[in-house]
């Protein structure tokens, strides 16, 4: 179940990052919204990981190299614009992917059909903030621009075929780019120009190669569970 692990890890890791915002959001409404998104993703992760094995063993007892999430979702939160840029790229991808999986006959169709409604909200949330920040003040525009730039090189990996997902990855990519381009235009922002795949491969998360912040994230996430081997919680 390569696909369940890949999609499950995406949801698990992004949920964790969003959970780090609790108590730090710029407005109270965003405490609620970010937690909502984190909870949706955690719910998806639990269903997907349970297709593979025991959800807690998979979440808490795997080493860094065994995780199959894309590198995009493990990136640190940074400022609010940084988080929104990551959300925009990922939720747009996830919505398009789940729409396609929901239409298919594969094992993820039921899950995808349910999740796509949640993800549509995540994408809507990210788009609204992209517009507000891009077309807000000079400072917010600049911060949003930096967030988009910083994550751009992690977006190539999103369209690497995942074994077990019957999806036309090329058209998925084209649909993603069209959508991102249109949102950024409306937000008075430019589509970043840098490379999206590099020789040293920004984006090999699906192969278990991650970035430095990810190890620290896992250390924090797993330490309590691992400190009490065999305990039930």
């Amino acid at each position, binding site marked *: 179940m390569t696909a369940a692990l890949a999609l499950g890890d995406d949801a698990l890791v992004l949920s964790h990052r969003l959970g780090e915002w609790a108590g730090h959001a*710029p407005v*109270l409404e965003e405490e609620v919204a970010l937690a909502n998104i984190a909870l949706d993703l955690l719910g998806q992760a639990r269903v997907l*990981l349970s297709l593979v094995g025991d959800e807690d063993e998979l979440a808490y007892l795997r080493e860094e190299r065994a995780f199959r999430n894309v590198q995009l979702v493990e990136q640190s939160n940074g400022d609010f614009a940084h988080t929104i840029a990551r959300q925009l790229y990922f939720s747009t991808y996830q919505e398009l992917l789940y729409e396609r999986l929901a239409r298919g006959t594969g094992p993820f169709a039921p899950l995808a059909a349910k999740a796509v409604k949640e993800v549509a909200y995540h994408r809507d949330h990210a788009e609204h903030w992209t517009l507000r920040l891009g077309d807000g003040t000079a400072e917010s525009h600049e911060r949003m621009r930096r967030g988009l730039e910083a994550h751009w090189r992690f977006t190539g990996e999103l369209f690497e075929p995942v074994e077990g997902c019957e999806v036309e990855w090329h058209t998925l990519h084209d649909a993603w780019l069209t959508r991102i381009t249109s949102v950024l235009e409306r937000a008075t922002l430019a589509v970043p120009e840098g490379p999206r795949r590099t020789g040293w491969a920004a984006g090999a998360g699906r192969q278990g190669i991650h970035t430095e912040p990810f190890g620290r994230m896992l250390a924090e996430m797993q330490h*309590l*569970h691992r400190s009490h081997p065999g305990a039930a919680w």
Partner: protein
Amino acid sequence: MTTMAADAGAYEAVFDAALAADERIEPRDWMPDEYRATLVRQMAQHAHSEIIGMQPEANWITRAPSLRRKAILMAKVQDEAGHGLYLYSAAETLGTSRGELLDKLHSGRQKYSSIFNYPTLTWADVGAIGWLVDGAAITNQVPLCRCSYGPYARAMVRICKEESFHQRQGYELLLALSRGTEAQHAMAQDAVDRWWWPSLMMFGPPDDSSAHSAQSMAWKIKRHSNDELRQRFVDICVPQAESLGLTLPDPELRWSEERGHYDFGPIDWDEFREVLRGNGPCNTQRITQRCRAHEEGAWVREAAAAYAAKHGKAQA
């Protein structure tokens, strides 16, 4: 008597009659200035407690030891943010604004519940907070569902439902630990030992030294005295602690046939006053984090306002 004074007298009579008949006072109704000020102060303090209260529990979200517990904890912290939202909105019906109240919180002119100035040192603290702190909050807040001010009472109905979920989840978390490994049981006992006394302090000073109680009771903002509510809470907790297989750190705790209540030992009011004065373990940390989140969010709020102004849409 001038006409205006006569009118004021008539308004006051209507207000008094509504209180006497247990009717709700609504935002457009006339109310005494002192009643309004008392409500604003109490609701603001309550709203502030909800949002500051997110911090000690959010401290464990990234370390929650199972995905199920993580989901429960994230949902709980989210509920507390929601409670903050309802309560700030309810306070706004009295002519203040969330921004103004937050400024007062940040500058120390308004308070939040002192309980959140204690640290969450282990995972079991999440359970102890749910069981004891949410439990004490419910004991305090259920009577507020019948508070004379309509918007506050209605907000409390919604909030109390969620708080009782939190209380049960906290209890259930502690039960799992108590029945778990030796180390887990010890973790649960240690957390209860640390949270028990501060939870009893949540009901406020004893009745003979409570500054605002009498007037609030007359206005039907408050329905029971601090000591009554504290006793009710102790009576609920003792049998629950037994079911949990945990002890409460009070050697004087015993059932009194005569009173029909549990007797309990003296509360350390010096500690209470010290924490209230700002000298608790986490006062500085909590307010610093709150101010930092607010300051770091300023550019986001400015952006949203600028966007709304350009596009003529309501702000996020």
